[in-house]
């Protein structure tokens, strides 16, 4: 077993690195840049029941050390994904985490039913935190009762472990995490984007066609670290951490905060080779701090401080 190996429900990963949903399409574009089989896994773009065209352009805007996106869950629909996209990933032989979205509970349930039955899909990631669609998405992700209900129903039909992807746009992330844990989630993914906006100062108009968008990139890493740190002390679910990770150091910081695996989003746009480069760098950093297996890193910070944050 390699020293980078990590194991999460449904995800047996040779290293803790996987691209984040929506930042890597269904893999085929980046497969032209490098051999995807080096990855610990892959999170594919959100699937909805029917194909969606998404939001008007412009769909991205640049911010300081971050970016806004309002893609709007554009995707060809679950059926086409199962027919065309997922099979193309077969040769790489890596765990697939399938991101699921919908406008209604029924849609989420149906998409989960279909996609989780694919033998190629290792786990599903319930996206209840997309800030860029009018219905569904974030509205499930900011009310903990809706989130728990949805989790329960999706769990009931899913043939694979279910990770719930949490929104950072909440007053109390721990409450959300506990609610979905109780509802039967197998793991958490956190964080999705913060809702943000940029205006053109000359015209006063929003840059994005959708006006608001999701803020990602290094700018949000401190928020991600804090939320993962807090949640990891209060729930016992494994966490796939994400939010602004772009270096191997970031990965170890996030694992120290409590993540068991780490997803890389925006950084792929900065450097298409970022994932393999991080994976190559990790053993060197572990050597530097004298850690044998990367799985020991998870929650190192809270272990060190022993008492949970909230009781201090």
């Amino acid at each position, binding site marked *: 077993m390699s020293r980078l190996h990590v194991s999460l429900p449904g995800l047996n990963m040779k290293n803790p690195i996987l691209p984040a949903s929506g930042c890597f399409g269904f893999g085929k574009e980046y497969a032209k840049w490098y051999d995807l089989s080096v990855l610990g896994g892959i999170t594919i773009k959100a699937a909805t029941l029917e194909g969606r065209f998404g939001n008007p352009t412009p769909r991205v805007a640049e911010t300081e050390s971050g970016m806004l996106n309002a893609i709007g869950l*554009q995707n060809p629909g679950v059926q086409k994904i199962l027919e065309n996209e997922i099979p193309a990933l077969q040769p790489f032989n890596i765990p697939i985490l399938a991101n699921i979205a919908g406008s209604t509970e029924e849609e989420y349930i149906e998409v989960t039913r279909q996609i989780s039955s694919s033998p190629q899909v290792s786990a599903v990631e319930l996206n209840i935190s997309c800030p860029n669609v009018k219905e569904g998405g974030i509205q499930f992700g900011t009310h903990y009762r809706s989130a728990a209900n949805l989790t329960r129903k999706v769990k009931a039909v899913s043939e694979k472990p279910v990770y719930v992807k949490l929104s950072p746009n909440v007053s109390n992330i721990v409450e959300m995490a506990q609610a979905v844990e109780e509802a039967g989630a197998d793991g958490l993914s956190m964080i999705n984007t913060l809702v943000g906006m940029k205006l053109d100062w000359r015209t006063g108009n929003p840059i994005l066609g959708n006006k608001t968008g999701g803020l990602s990139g290094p700018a949000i890493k401190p928020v991600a670290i804090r939320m993962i740190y807090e949640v990891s002390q209060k729930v016992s679910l494994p966490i796939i951490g994400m939010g602004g990770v772009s270096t191997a150091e970031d990965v170890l910081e996030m694992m120290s905060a409590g993540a068991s695996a780490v997803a890389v989003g925006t950084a792929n746009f900065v450097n298409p080779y970022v994932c393999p480069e991080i994976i190559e760098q990790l053993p060197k950093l572990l050597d530097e701090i004298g850690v044998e297996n990367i799985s020991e890193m998870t929650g190192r910070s809270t272990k060190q401080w022993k008492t949970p944050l909230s009781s201090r």
Partner: protein
Amino acid sequence: MKKHLLNVTSNIEIARNIFEMKLTGPGVGSMTTPGQFLHVSVGNHSSKLLRRPLSICDVDLDREEVTLLYRAQGEGTKQLSQKSAGEIVDVLGPLGNGFELAENDHNRKALLIGGGIGVPPLYYLGKHLKSKGIEVTFILGYQSIEDSFYIEKFNEIGETIVTTVDGSLGIKGFVTDAMMNVMNDEPIIYSVGPAIMLKAVEERAGGLRGYLSLEERMGCGIGACFACVCPTETRESGYVKICSDGPVFKMGEVVL
């Protein structure tokens, strides 16, 4: 499709806020199709994450040198304009699908229409077409004489008609105002510029065949993020991705 670290050989202001940057490195050898672009990183240790798509304006294969022309307008291109000879620029590319010639295009004349910062790729395209024996005419539209650039160089390739919005050089008006007089030979039209100009060109072109190169804000630049879509009625999916399906499309192929 590769990431290259190219060396700046020169980076000079050739018109108001317009910079000509020459870059060299082994990667240049692959940049042989006009209309393709490079996705350019504007700074390291920088707070500007997103790359800037810039068209290939010229390539000198012997010297392994690629030329980019860009307007320093926003923060990113301003940073780029600070780079001096010897510094490194990190680019992805060549990306996208450039201009291609259909078999039956070879005997026809070509009319190349560019507005503002849409002009650069027409230079490399013009050279290619000329080398295939095609007679090339350019219509280049600028805001004013201060914003104009490369006119001499275009003139070396073919007849070059200039329009300026304020009339300070050439015909006063837009590129479309200059189109009528040069469409008699039913040239193939190649056009690059803002969507609103492309739309006008397409309309003015009547039934003529041609190619348009589109612009849109990009994330990945390689087809993965769906930032740069454009609606189309000609494909089942209902959209194209400008970065990977384009940036060049046949006239009429996409909904402008």
